[in-house]
């Protein structure tokens, strides 16, 4: 391109001017020009008229419809029981189901509902009245073995030593009985005695005054 520019730089431009000479008017050409212009004007006018009319008519019809349709619709609807019609003709279950299928109800509630406000307004005492507190307490006591916990926290070293001595006694009893039963070729012993041991008795405050001597 730079080489081209260099070529232009070296080129010379020579302008030669001379007076114009008007040609003679052609009659055929003039007639044709007049005709073409007339046809174009007529076409343009017709098109414009048509558009104007169309627009005017559309506006008029629309405004007429705007006024008339609500009145007609109201009149029609007044004469129809729309609710019954919907109930009769529309499968509402399917509509509701498809609606519910389409949305995550839980998320909707979480997003839109103030759960704290609902809980705050709820009558908790009425709920608690219906909750089986005592069975729950019993259940908890059983599950955590509360008697054992109380025992662990109340019996001191002396109690544990006593338990230990007794436990060793029981172990020695079983060991000796096992050895002798093996020597005598016996199988087990009948150790169930009548009566209930006091250690499994229920503790009752009101019973503490009772004297067993009067019983026998």
């Amino acid at each position, binding site marked *: 391109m730079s080489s081209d520019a260099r070529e232009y730089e070296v080129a010379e431009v020579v302008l030669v001017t001379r007076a114009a000479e008007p040609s003679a008017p052609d009659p055929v050409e003039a007639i044709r020009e007049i005709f073409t212009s007339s046809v174009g004007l007529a076409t343009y006018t017709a098109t414009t008229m048509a558009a104007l009319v169309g627009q005017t008519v559309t506006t008029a019809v629309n405004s007429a419809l705007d006024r008339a349709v609500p009145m007609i619709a109201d009149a029609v609807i007044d004469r129809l029981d729309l609710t019954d019609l919907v109930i009769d003709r529309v499968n509402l279950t399917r509509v509701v189901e498809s609606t519910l299928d389409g949305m995550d109800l839980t998320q909707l509630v979480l997003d839109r509902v103030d759960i704290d406000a609902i809980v705050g307004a709820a009558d908790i005492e009425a709920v608690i009245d219906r909750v089986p507190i005592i069975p729950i307490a019993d259940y908890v006591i059983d599950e955590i073995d509360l008697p054992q916990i109380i025992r662990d926290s109340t019996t001191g070293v002396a109690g544990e030593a006593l338990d230990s001595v*007794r436990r060793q006694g029981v172990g020695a009893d079983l060991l000796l009985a096992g050895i002798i039963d093996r020597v005598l070729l016996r199988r087990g012993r009948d*150790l169930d*005695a*009548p009566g209930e041991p006091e*250690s499994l008795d229920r*503790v*009752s405050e009101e019973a503490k005054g009772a004297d067993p001597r009067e019983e026998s």
Partner: protein
Amino acid sequence: MTTFREYRAAQLHGFVADRNVPALPTDAVRFQGERAGLVSRAVAAIIDVVLIFAAVLATIAALWMLSFIIDPTNTGNLTASVEAAADRQTRIPPAVAMVAYGYVLNVLYWTAFWALSGRTVGNLVMGLRVVNRKGAHPGWFLSLARALFCTIFPIGLIWVALSRRNKSVQDVVLRTNVIYDWVVGIPWLKQGDDAEDLRAERGGIGDEAHT
């Protein structure tokens, strides 16, 4: 772990939470009420006899000290013979008398404790209790009979090891049992249902008296 739902279901089917073991190690509940074996019972008996022996020694010591007030002129030494006692040559009673005293004391001690609570001190330490054939406290007469029998014929305890039902000769003859009963607390305070039965019994007797 049982869920609360399961627990409730069990309750509906008649399950009652067993909370009657307030002061017992959970693993010891299993053998409560079973007949005890030889070792526990022998240890308990030895504890009792040692206690009685200590009581006899204490009595001798007390008598010796009292003798300085009662009989200050006695110059005798510690000779526990009948002759020495007869000749006022000693300040302590003859050995024969003290042994007899020990036996009597032993019988009285066992009788009283068995009749009152079913337990002597040795039984309490080893977690044992003497019961009659119905499983209740032995009465005074039965306790006396058993105490005499045990004191006179202690070797009868050996039968526990051989018996299929852990019974000593005394247990067989008097139809008693010695059971594991690890009660904690004061043993002769009867508790719970028994007391209710007792009240019902009294009420019943009262009603009969009215009619």
